């Protein structure tokens, strides 16, 4: 009798899980992002994006009553020139069908993984990820690199956001105003995230912005004291860089 109950529970549980795929589309403002295209910051500086890599972790779907369906695992999203930029699959998981009020996730690596010996960690962590940060604690969480077109010529710039202090909580749920509604039917669903790459360059408090004419601001690294205020501006901009797509 007991094995039958167990089998029934497994079948029931299996029937309740619907396949979900999370995809990502890159944008700059309201345009679809394209490799090789020149964009402009709000301050009028022209740039091109050459590389994007980031960790997504601690994903959860949020039910209407505020409870969460948490998704285990961590993924490394990698975008390089000529690679697709729209509707790119990030991760697949299963979730109970039903209505949700959005989702949340972190851009970054959970602290308990961020400080282990990278030489012993498996992909997508580890030394070969290209995200291990030998001189700062742990991994680079969000890595955006590109070229600025300045009057004196083109100059490379990098934004390497990381360290536990800069793990980015992205919250795309709304329980009160109910503006966000995700429906996961029993047959499964595709959820699309948008990431506005240009958002990083918006000005911060007092008009502070990433002025690439300053050589020091072409190298934003985690806790670097010379650039921390600008990294903080990028961090706060990035809180609003993700959105749910159609």
């Amino acid at each position, binding site marked *: 009798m007991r094995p039958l109950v167990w089998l029934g529970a497994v079948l029931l549980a299996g029937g309740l899980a619907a396949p979900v795929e999370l995809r990502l589309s890159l944008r700059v403002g309201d345009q679809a992002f394209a490799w090789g295209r020149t964009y402009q910051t709000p301050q009028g500086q022209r740039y091109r994006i050459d590389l994007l890599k980031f960790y997504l972790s601690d994903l959860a779907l949020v039910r209407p009553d505020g409870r969460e369906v948490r998704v285990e695992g961590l993924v490394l999203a990698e975008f390089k020139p000529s690679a697709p930029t729209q509707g790119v699959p990030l991760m697949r998981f299963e979730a109970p069908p039903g209505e949700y009020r959005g989702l949340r996730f972190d851009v970054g690596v959970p602290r308990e993984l961020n400080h282990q*010996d*990278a*030489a*012993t960690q498996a992909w997508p962590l*580890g*030394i*070969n*990820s*290209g995200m*291990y940060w*030998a*001189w*700062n*604690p742990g991994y680079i969480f969000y890595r955006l690199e590109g070229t600025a077109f300045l009057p004196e010529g083109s100059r*490379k710039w*990098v934004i390497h956001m990381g*360290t536990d*202090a800069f793990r980015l909580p992205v919250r795309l749920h709304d329980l009160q105003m109910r503006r966000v509604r995700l429906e996961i039917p029993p047959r499964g669903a595709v959820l699309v995230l948008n990431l506005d790459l240009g958002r990083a360059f918006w000005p911060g408090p007092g008009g502070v912005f990433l002025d690439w004419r300053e050589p020091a601001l072409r*190298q934003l690294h985690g*806790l*670097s*004291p*010379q650039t921390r205020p600008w990294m903080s501006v990028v961090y706060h901009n990035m809180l609003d860089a993700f959105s749910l797509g159609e």
Partner: protein
Amino acid sequence: MRRGWALVLLGLGLLALERPAVTPAVLHLPPDPRTLAGPRAVPIPPDNPQTPAKVELGRRLFYDPRLSKDGRVACASCHRPEFAFSDGGNPVSTGVFGRKGSRNAPTLTNVAFRQRLFWEGRSPRLELQAVGPLTAHHEMGMEPEELAARLSAIPEYARAFQEVFGEPPSLRTVAFAIAAFERTLLSFNSPFDRYQAGDDQALSEAALRGMELFFSERGDCFHCHVGPDFTDDEPRNNGLYTVYKDIGLAQATGRDEDVGKFKTPTLRNVALTAPYMHDGSKKTLREVVEHYNRGGEPNLNADPLIRPLGLSEAEIDDLVAFLESLTDTSFTTNPALLPP
């Protein structure tokens, strides 16, 4: 008598440092008759056992500029053997495409024994530390995929990695091989070592006087520069500046009390590794000793040991003479450590 106490203190320092973080094993090196002190037990991490083939592969990689983005910068570009694997007079090093770093390249002398790496000690092991220079934008600037593809296209490397690691080249295996080579950068044959081994003629009179000062409360060098490699591996603020442009350990911890803290460097071969301090701001050993003799610059985080010492000009000269006696020329000319 004071010399006797100095030796006792040094011995205690030796004992205090015998606490490797990983399983110790004796390095598989042929005995070097010139190394009078003999090889100490080098800590070898269990996941990167030392083999002659791996060391040789690491040596080739260490001297190969093809590991860098522009093909012009090798590990050895900034860690040159003739300068005890430091950067030969450059306050900061030049990386790919002429990009400048912000810190002085430290010596790799006896780096196998260091329990913390980088100037503020943020890396716990050589395998992880090596990733930094290989990938840093202003050092070698390589991406893991690019490095793997470039080395895989070189038949000798493809074959060697397969033999040593049983897998193709990758950033991880490159770092592991370089770490294995770095663990062979051992130096224990300075005049000081020979004096310790019983050669009464090994040190000059000035160096002997300097040694007395070094290990005395008056000179007070030995509290931080302790043990067989003359370092406690601890980050300290040595009063170099009142306001630090580079905040050192505080970059990692975010704590005000860590501003300006950098790791105590080894003094082995220190006469070959000018300029000094984390930013290469002191050109000579005499300038360094004068800095400590003045008691450094005012700084709330300065180590309590930093205070005016009241040394005479002659005593400063003696201390410098002792520091010069830590030079091991057999290390800088050892064929096993030079380019293959």
